[in-house]
């Protein structure tokens, strides 16, 4: 069966990776990538379309390309990336436009995959050791990014109820570490520093970046509806994460932590967003068994993901960034995709 896929957030780490993974699949005929920024990695046959933050153009694209699957990777889960306002615009308004496009009359969309985050569970002292997908968070969200993700998930549930003919899959990813991904936590560890709240040594859980892409690919090709946690097996104390990565612990006071974190944030010494400070106090664990039962195999445990990250980080420190820079050139990309002079081997 030939398929036509739309990937949102093509210029982000996950969108680009996902498009690359989909390009390898011969069953997928057309891949359209949407983003506000240009792709940052080389792509073979993905068609890039520039959009505004709130994706108002989306309905037209869906109608014109007749895609049957939308992979929505463009949910911002790292609040240090942008202002709260853009975050709301991208996460909430962007998703609303996407769902509106997918539920239009006579729509071609039959499958929707959304990449959310385990941030929706929050991190509090009232939490269970493992969150199953059905278990709600213990305390109401305090941070903007968590609120926006919860809103998005609410809209998505309504969409799934109203559109039973669409296979809707929601993936909640644990904290990601890997060879290339840059998050606040990876940045700390990369610089050999591990901020820790005195008196707390929370248990954290990680998922390796390759497992993230593989999980997205798995649900996109296997049509598994529902909500799934995606996280490596096991949890490990933050002190152990620091030890594996060779990072030194930087103690933060257990009281008035926010007050101390403020200037550290402000002066750009370390990024300490509030949702990550909660994590450093109470940790978080999500039950990953449901996706395994659906047939997905992880390649890394939580500790394995940390170790893999530590190895990549050591290499980076020794030889610098080993990847050549890639810049998207509209004319060049258009030439390779559309010029009659290029001989295209059949897929």
């Amino acid at each position, binding site marked *: 069966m030939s398929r036509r896929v739309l990937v949102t957030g093509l210029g982000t780490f996950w969108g680009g990776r996902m498009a690359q993974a989909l390009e390898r699949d011969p069953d997928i005929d057309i891949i359209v990538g949407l983003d506000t920024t240009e792709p940052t990695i080389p792509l073979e046959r993905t068609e890039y379309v520039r959009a505004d933050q709130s994706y108002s153009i989306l309905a037209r694209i869906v109608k014109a390309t007749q895609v049957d699957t939308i992979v929505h990777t463009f949910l911002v889960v790292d609040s240090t990336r942008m202002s709260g306002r853009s975050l709301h615009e991208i996460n909430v308004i962007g998703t609303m436009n996407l769902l509106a496009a997918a539920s239009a009359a006579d729509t071609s969309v039959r499958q929707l995959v959304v990449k959310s985050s385990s941030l929706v569970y929050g991190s509090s002292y009232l*939490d*269970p050791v493992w969150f199953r997908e059905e278990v709600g968070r213990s305390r109401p969200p305090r941070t903007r990014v968590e609120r926006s993700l919860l809103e998005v998930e609410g809209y998505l549930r309504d969409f799934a109820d109203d559109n039973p003919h669409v296979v809707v899959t929601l993936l909640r990813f644990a904290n990601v570490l890997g060879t*290339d991904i840059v998050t606040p936590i990876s940045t700390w560890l990369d610089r050999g520093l591990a901020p820790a709240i005195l*008196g707390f040594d929370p248990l954290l859980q990680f998922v390796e970046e390759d497992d993230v892409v593989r999980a997205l690919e798995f649900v996109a090709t296997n049509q598994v509806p529902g909500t799934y946690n995606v996280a490596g097996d096991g949890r490990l104390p933050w002190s152990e994460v620091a030890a594996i990565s060779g990072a030194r612990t930087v103690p933060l006071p257990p009281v008035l932590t926010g007050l101390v974190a403020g200037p550290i944030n402000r002066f750009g010494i370390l990024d300490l967003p509030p949702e990550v400070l909660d994590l450093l106090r109470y940790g978080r664990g999500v039950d990953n068994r449901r996706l395994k039962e659906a047939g997905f195999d992880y390649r890394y445990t939580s500790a394995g993901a940390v170790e893999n990250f530590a190895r990549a980080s050591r290499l980076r420190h020794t030889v610098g960034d080993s*990847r*050549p820079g890639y810049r998207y050139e509209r004319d060049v990309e258009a030439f390779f995709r559309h010029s009659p002079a290029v001989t295209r081997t059949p897929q």
Partner: protein
Amino acid sequence: MAAGNRVVDVRRPGALIPLPLPSAEDRRLRDPRRSDVDEWGRSEHMRSLARTLYGPLYRNWFRAEWEGLENIPREGGALLVANHAAAIPSDAPVIMHGIEEELGRPVYGLADYIFKAMPVVGTLWSRVGGVPAHPENAYRLLREQGELVLVFPEGSKGPGKTYAERYRLSRFGRGGFVEIAMRAGVPVVPIAVVGAEESMPILLKSNALAKLMNIPYFPITANMLLFGPLLGTLVYLPAKFKLRVLDPVLFDVPPNQERYSKSRIMDEAESIRVSLQETLYEMLRTRRSVWFG
């Protein structure tokens, strides 16, 4: 030059120095842990240290004596419930240590979340075997891992009562422990504890200070009057501990139900409370001395 022929390493785009890919077997099994802290936050290393330190206190200070240990299953999950007492409860470690010594089975103690929110205390407590009392945690331990789980249904009302109310059981919450046992399909094993009440009796309570410090109760204990405010929070009085394990209570209901009858839950919880209360009175009738049993 055909676009489709370019080889792109999709795993690591454009990597100049390829990192060796772990072999398939490696990838699946490799779990490079360094510490022995498990998913519950327990560390066997810390636990054996705690056992070594606590052993003398258990044997020589509290001189714990057990009755009816055969009522605790040797394998499979069971929910142990007990009366709760002393300003800083001395019963939880006695029960956990005792069962681990006598039966060689680990006990997971469910306790108030407030511990988890405290620096140092929370971390130590979880390293030696404490688990926050969340129904999800209890279910996983009892049903999926078949462990012994200890819970005090009185909650903080038990240790928060004054010496004048000693050995009078408070309300057993809303019977949540019965519901968990039903859902997990495990028996409830009640344990009556005599001795904890006298090990750190509360003479007075200050509600204002408790509210100020955001803790369930602020006690003035006999120990504080005897040993001073600091040492008094650390030193227990050498009350003799006697523990009696009652017959396991089995509920004739299917496990894993969405919902159980609330009235049934309340009835069962109340009947367990009554039998524990009667056992306590029975044990107190035969006790000759607080210090020697």
